[in-house]
């Protein structure tokens, strides 16, 4: 572009003086230096430091897709876009304009010994990718539980979610505080959402390594092997379920063909980057004119 005075603006950093001339002459493909500069500007606008290059194994959690569809529907005024937005986002998250999802680090997963009546897993989450300026307003841990195929195995489970303040010492007992708890019936397949805001807000603010969350499932009517598979908090549990289904010659439950990558626990943070105005928040989309 040329300014009104007729003088051409200086080329951007990284671009040669020939780049602008080439564009002015209408060359179809812009030169590499200019392309890189423009891409850098666009990525900066999106809040990214470099271009993401996801690998083939990248998984998009179903919740994030549902949330996008609901948000898109609310923006465009479309109907039949799945679950309504206010059922997917809790009230404290209404001021957020950014939702991030984190799978736990399985390589660092600590598996406490299961007792007969309870199953527990410690899940470690690396939230260091949250930008410095982003304020986390709330967070949830999503845990999938699958309907038990046998009515005889149906029963009540209590799911406790703790923040681990100090890992297990020599006696094997971690220091943890209870964040959320719920009693569920094993007759349904669905995601349970637990409020873990106090932990995630502090993790994001301090930027220090955290000790993760401890998910404990208490089998209130006794812990048969099948009941221990009801809540999906570990890969091994899922593998057992798949093996059991294969042995039975049928696939039961709410998987719909989905595997552990789709059903593993998910930490979801709701935050605000502080750059946008109020109408940019998730729950207050502006209706399309």
């Amino acid at each position, binding site marked *: 572009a040329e300014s009104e005075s007729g003088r051409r603006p200086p080329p951007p950093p990284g671009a040669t003086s020939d780049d602008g001339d080439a564009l002015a002459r209408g060359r179809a493909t812009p030169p590499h230096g200019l392309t890189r500069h423009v891409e850098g500007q666009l990525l900066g606008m999106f809040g990214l430091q470099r271009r993401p290059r996801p690998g083939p194994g990248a998984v998009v959690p179903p919740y994030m897709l549902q949330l996008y569809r609901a948000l*898109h529907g609310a923006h465009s005024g479309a109907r039949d876009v799945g679950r309504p937005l206010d059922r997917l986002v809790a009230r404290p998250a209404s001021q957020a304009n950014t939702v991030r999802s984190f799978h736990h680090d399985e390589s660092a997963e600590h598996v406490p010994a299961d007792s007969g009546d309870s199953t527990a897993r410690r899940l470690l989450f690396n939230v260091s990718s949250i930008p410095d300026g982003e304020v986390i307003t709330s967070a949830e841990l999503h845990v999938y539980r699958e309907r038990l195929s046998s009515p005889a195995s149906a029963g009540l489970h209590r799911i406790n979610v703790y923040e681990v303040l100090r890992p297990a010492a020599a006696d094997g007992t971690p220091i943890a505080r209870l964040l959320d708890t719920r009693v569920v019936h094993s007759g349904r397949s669905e995601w349970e959402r637990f409020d873990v805001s106090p932990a995630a807000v502090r993790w994001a603010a301090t930027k220090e390594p955290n000790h993760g969350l401890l998910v404990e499932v208490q089998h209130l009517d006794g812990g048969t092997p099948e009941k221990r598979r009801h809540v999906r908090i570990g890969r091994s549990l899922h593998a057992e379920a798949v093996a059991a289904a294969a042995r039975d010659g049928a696939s039961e439950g709410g998987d719909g063909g989905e595997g552990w990558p789709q059903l593993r626990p998910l930490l979801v943070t709701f935050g605000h980057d502080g750059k946008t105005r109020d109408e940019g928040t998730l729950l207050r989309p502006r209706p399309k004119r």
Partner: protein
Amino acid sequence: NSRPNKGGRRGRGQCARYPLYVDFSDVGWNDWIVAPPGYNAFFCQGECHFPLPQHLNSTNHAIVQTLVNSVNPEVPRACCIPTELTPIALLYLDEYEKVVLKNYQDMVVEGCGCR
């Protein structure tokens, strides 16, 4: 991208909004932007002639500048720019392969005007 018509319904190349679809696959970004595949961004183009129509939501300054331009062409006309914009939500994988849903402000032109 459709070029605005001279004359016709919008008359004398008057400032107006025109369609502009941004396709993320055109820049090879569809490998990390999960949804949407693209969006209607629109753009504003045209001239701000005297007298300014009411639907252009002109500022007082734009009206005065346009008036002065009508008697002294050395003073430029007011600019045709977006006056109302709305956000869009993007679902993407970030540099760390974390899935992010973010609402980006001022991405879609809803209205154009002379300012």
